[in-house]
C-alpha cells in the first residue's frame, strides 16, 4: 500500500517533523516550538495538523512514542525517530532538495 501524499503541505510537515525529531526525542509541543524557532517564526505549525501527522507517522513506523516526564515534570508523550524514519528522512530531504532546486530553476528563467 502506498502512502504517497498528494498534499504537498502535508508532505512538507512530515519532513519538518522528522527533521525536528532527528536531533533528539521530544513531545508534540516541543516539535512545534523547534520548527518555529529554527525557521525564525516563518513556519507556524498548525496544532490541528501537527497531532494527526504525528499519529500518522507513528502508524507508519517512522517515529515511535513513549510516555515520559517533561522538563517541568508533567506526563508527556515523547516521539523519537526510528531507523526506518531516519532512512525516510534522508529520502525526503533528497526529494525536497531536488524539488526546490527545480522550482528555483523555473523561477530563475526570465
Amino acid at each position, binding site marked *: 500500500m502506498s502512502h504517497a501524499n498528494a498534499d504537498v503541505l502535508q508532505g512538507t510537515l512530515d519532513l519538518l517533523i522528522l527533521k525536528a525529531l532527528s536531533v533528539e526525542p521530544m513531545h*508534540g509541543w516541543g516539535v512545534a516550538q523547534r520548527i518555529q524557532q529554527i525557521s525564525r517564526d516563518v513556519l507556524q505549525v*498548525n*496544532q*490541528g495538523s501537527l*497531532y494527526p*501527522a504525528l499519529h500518522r507517522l507513528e*502508524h507508519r*513506523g517512522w517515529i515511535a512514542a513513549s510516555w515520559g516526564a*517533561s522538563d517541568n515534570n508533567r506526563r508527556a508523550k515523547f516521539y523519537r525517530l526510528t531507523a526506518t524514519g531516519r532512512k525516510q528522512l534522508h529520502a525526503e530531504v533528497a526529494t525536497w532538495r531536488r524539488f526546490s532546486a527545480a522550482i528555483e530553476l523555473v523561477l530563475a528563467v526570465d
Partner: protein
Amino acid sequence: MDRFRGLLVRFRSLWKREAAERDLDDELRFHVAMETEAGRARGLAPDEARRRALLTFGGIERFREETRDADRPRWLDDARADLAHAWRLVLSRPGFSAAVVFTLGIGVGANTAIFGIVNAVLLRPSPFPRPDRLVMIWETDRKSGTRHEPASWPDVVDFAERSRTLQAIGAMTGRDVTLARRGASEPERVTGLAITPSVLAVLGVHVIAGRPFAADEGRPGGQDVVLLGEQFWRTRFSADPAIVGHTILVDERPALVAGILPEAADLGVRQIHERADYAETFSSAHVDVWLALQPSVDSFPRETHPFLTVGRLAPGATPAAAQRELSTIAAALEREYPVNAHRGVNIESYGSVVFGAVRPALLLLFGAVTLLLLVTCANVANLLLARTAARTREVAVRMALGAARARIARQFLVESLVYVVLGGAAGVVLAFAALHGLVSLAPSDVPRVDTASIDGRVAAYTAGTTLVIGILFAALPALQMRRLDLHHALKSHGGRLISLGRSARRFQACVIVAEVALTVMLVAGAGLLLRSLWRLSRVDPGFDTTRVLEAQYQLPSTRYPIDFKRFPDIPAINAFHARMLSAVRAIPGVAAAALAANPPLDPGFTNSFTIVGREAESAHFPEIRTRFVSPGYLETLGVPLLGGRAIAESDDAHSPNVIVINRAAARRYFATTDPIGQSIAFWGAARRIVGIIGDEKFRGVDAPSDPAVYAPIAQAPLQQATILVRASRGDAMALVPDIRAELRALDPQVALFGVEPLALSLRSSIAKPRFDAVLLAAFGAVAILLAVIGVYGVLSYTVTERMPELGVRMALGANRWNVIRLVAGTGVGLAALGVALGMGAAYAGSRLLRSMVFGVSTTDPVTFVGVILIVMLTALAASLAPALRATRADPMQALRAES
C-alpha cells in the same frame, strides 16, 4: 520491524479504544498546558494565555476526530461498509438468498455430518497408548486354510513364555452372563468379556474407580472378581462408586466388583470377535461386565481354541519380526504336540482388525459427500454468476465514477463470504440433526460410531471447508468483473438485461457440465450399491423368516452342570430343553417350535471330523460347521428335506448317534456316493448320516453356505439354547410374554434374551451395506435435484437473455419446434457432455467399489445405462420448461425492443 510496531499501535487503538482515547486527551492537555505557560512567559494573564492556547487548536473536537482517523485503520471502515452493503443485498432478495444458503447448507451439512462420523471412528486418538504397537495373534490351520483362528490356552502360555518380540500377551473371549443383584428380582443377561489380567496391561487401560484384576485372580482357584463397563455402571448402577467392593451374582455365583473400566476400553472387542473364523458370540457394541479368566490346561486343553489373543510389541520389535519369531515357536509346538499339527501363527495389526472392514466404506461415503458438496458449490457458483450479470450495470456505473477494481472485487468477496458464512451456519445446524440420525441408523458393528459428535476438529474442518468455498466464490464474480466492458455496459438502457460476457457464458456452461458429471459419478455409485443391496436382500438365506421369532436362554452351570464322563446323557439339561420345547409348542398360536444351539445366521463353531472308512483322506478336510438342533427345526424354519429323514424325537441320548448333513456337505464330500447310511465321526463318536437338508447361510447372506452337519441337540446337550417359534398367524412377537412365562415356570432364575423376529436378524445382517446404499442414494437424489435446478436456472437465464433474438427468429419463420429444439438442445447437449465425462470417471473409479458390492459387476451395464437414462431424462425435463417459455416469445415485441 518499525512497520510492525506501527501496526501494533493501530491494533492497540482498536482493541483498547478507551486507553487510546485517554492517551490522546492527555497529550492534548499537555500541549494546552505548555502553550498556556508559554503565553504567561510572554506576559499574558493566565486566563488569556489559556484562551489563546485553546484557540490555536481551532476546535478540540474536530482535531480529536482527525487524530482518531489517523489512528483507525481505513480498511476496517471499508469492511464495515461492505458488510452492511452485503447484508442489505442479502435481505433485499430473500428468495435468491434462501436458495443459496439452503443449497450450501445441504452440501456443508451433509459433509460435516459424514466427517463427524469419520472423525469419531477413524481420526480420534485411540484410548490405548501407542496403538500401533498392538497386534492380534491368530492361529492358522494349513489343513483347513483358516487364518484367523483363536488360540488354545496352552499355546497362549507358550507364546508368552517363549516370545521376545512381544512384551506382553493377553487372552480374551466373549462370555455373556446372567447378572443378578442381591434383592433384585429379575436376573439380567448381559454382555461379558472374559480376559486374563494381562489384557488390561497389554491394552494400557486404567480403571476409573477401584482396582484392576490382580495377577492371582487370573489363576484357577482365584477369587471371582468382575470389572464393570462404564456405560453399564452408569445406566444400571447410576454411576454409584460405592458398588466397588460389593458382591453381585454372576451366573448365580457371587463375584466381587473390583473396579470400573472406562467406556473406551472395549474399542475393537466386537470387531476382533467378528474377524475370528469362529468365536463366542459377541454382538453388543459395549462390554457390560469384564470377567477374570481363570484358565487351566485341564479346563482349556490344547485341542480347544477359544482365545482371542492380543499382544504388545516389545520396544524395537516389528510386526514382521513378531511374525517370524512366533512362526518359529509354532513350528516347535507342532513338533512337541501332535494336536498342534498344521498350526501356524498369523500376526495382524490391531488397527487393521478393528478398522479394516469399516475404513473403505467410510472413505467411500466421505468421497460421495464431497462430490455432493462440489455439486452444491457448482450450483451456488451459477446462481452467484447470474446475480453478477444482473449487476453488471451497477458495477459499471461505480467504476465509471472512479471506484477502483480492487475495491469492487473486495465488495464481491464480502458478499460471497456473507453467503458462505450463512450457508456454513445452516450446514452446521443441519449437521447436528443429520449426525444424530446417522448415528442411530449406523450399523452397531462400526467401532465407536456412537461417540460421533461435532467436536473441535469437526468444527475446524467445517470452518476450513467453508472458507475455501467462500474464497473460490469470491474469486468468481471478481474475475468476471475484470473483463467488464465499461462502454458496452453503460450504453445499454435500463430495463434491459445486460448479458454475460462470452467468457462468463462459457464458464457457466463448464460449471453445468461439471455439475452433471459429478452427479453422474455419485448416482452411478449409488446405483451400484442399490443394485448390490437388492441382490443381497433377494439372496435366499435357506430358511423362511415369516412369523418366526428367536429367543435365547442359558442354563447356569451351577445347577445344570455338564458331566463329561456321562456325556451326552445329561438328564437335567436334556429334560429342561425337552420340557421347555413342549411347553412352548403347547402355547396357543404356535405353529411350530424348535431348539438350536445357535440361531440361524449365527456362524456358531466348526469341528474337525473324519468320514468313517475314509480316515486318511479326512486328514486333509477343513473343519465342518457343526449345528445342534431339536426335532421340528426343519418345519419351523422351512428348511427343505432333500433326502432321508429329519432328526426325530427318538434320536435321544440313549439311542444311536445320528446326523443330518446339508447339501453343500453332500456335494463336497459325497459327490460320487450316497451319504445316507455312511458315518461321520467327531467328539470321539461315529454318527450315522440319516438325511440331507437344504443349505442355510451361516456367515452372512453374501458368503456361500459352508458344508455343515446337524446333530440332535439331545445327543450333544449344551447349556445355551435358542428357541425358534413360528406363529400360526399374526405377529410372532405377541407370543413372547407366554414364552417368558413358560421359562419362568421352569426356572425363575433363567433369563430370556436376544428376543427378536428372525426377519429382523436377517435384515440386520445386511445393515452395513444398507446404510451405505441408502446414504449414497440420498446423496445421489439431492445431486440430481441440484443438477436439475442448475440446468433449469442456466437455461431460463439464457432464454430471458435471448428472448429478442428468439422473437426475431420466429418473425423470420422459425416454428415452435425449432425454438424448443434450439433451447432444449443446449441443455441436453451440456448434460450429455457431463454424462460422458461423469461416466468415464465413474468407470475409472468403479474399482474402488469392488470390495463393497455383491452380485453385481462394478461396471454393471444395467446400472450404468440406467444412470445415463435417469440423468439425461431429468436434464431434458429441466430444459423443457425454459424451452416452452421461449416459444412464447412475441415477434412484435422483440422487434420493437430491438429498434
